């Protein structure tokens, strides 16, 4: 099968570009705070794919270590953000990010 292009760096970068675009779309257009969080997770995954792809074709370990730290930061971010979302729900009785217009109870 000579007509198939061998899998290279561009393939991974393409997938990563799609994930970044979908994540940005979710962050921009969704009113539900949890779906916005899912968009942020998609963006972080896109960044991780880029790190690992460049690290593989460069031969260094910097990208691999950085992606490991990105996963840890994503876990911390998800925990904090969901705690905040639950507090917002307790106060406003909804998780609609466009209806939250005050920072005090």
């Amino acid at each position: 099968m000579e007509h198939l292009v061998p899998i290279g760096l561009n393939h991974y970068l393409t997938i990563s570009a799609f994930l970044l675009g979908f994540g940005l779309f979710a962050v921009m257009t969704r009113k539900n705070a949890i779906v916005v969080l899912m968009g942020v997770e998609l963006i972080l995954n896109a960044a991780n794919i880029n790190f690992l792809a460049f690290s593989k074709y460069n031969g260094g370990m910097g990208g691999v270590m950085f992606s490991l730290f990105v996963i840890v930061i994503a876990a911390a971010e998800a925990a904090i953000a969901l705690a905040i979302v639950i507090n917002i729900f307790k106060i406003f009785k909804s998780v609609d990010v466009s209806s939250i217009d005050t920072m005090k109870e």
Partner: protein
Amino acid sequence: MNNLTYTVIFYIFAAITVFSAAFVVLSRNVIYSAFSLLFTFFGVAALYVFLSADFIAVTQIVVYVGGILVLLLFGVMFTKSIMNPGLKSEVLHVIPGTVILAGIIGALLYTFYTTHTWMPSEKQLNGSIVERIGYETMSHYVLPFEMVSILLLAALIGAAFLARFDKPDNNKS
């Protein structure tokens, strides 16, 4: 490494990742989005295996699927009744969002495919890298490793503190 099976499996996982990510964004039901995100995370983990980052792939499954996705589902179920027919997420700014989506993807792909070809190094990562990750963590990355562990501890304590329920003797008002 360039045989047909490898290529076909790569394209299958790439399609799973991209289409389930699109479904996360385009589905109006929050529960459907959350379960579609599961497939996205598994697809991304499979791509990590293709990138010879097996340890990162296992970490992805354990942390994302086992931790973050369960947390997101808890968030969905805490804030909405699961039987509620109104479990939809409204959309706003669809037109600018679509423009940004198409613009970002188009600009990135244009840049990737019209600039010069990449020049990969001769010594690419091959095989398992678990041992090298261990060496790197304990040599070059000791300080970031410890700092990120303290950060994670502080973040989890802070999350538990923020999300706690009020004690009965606290809400006198």
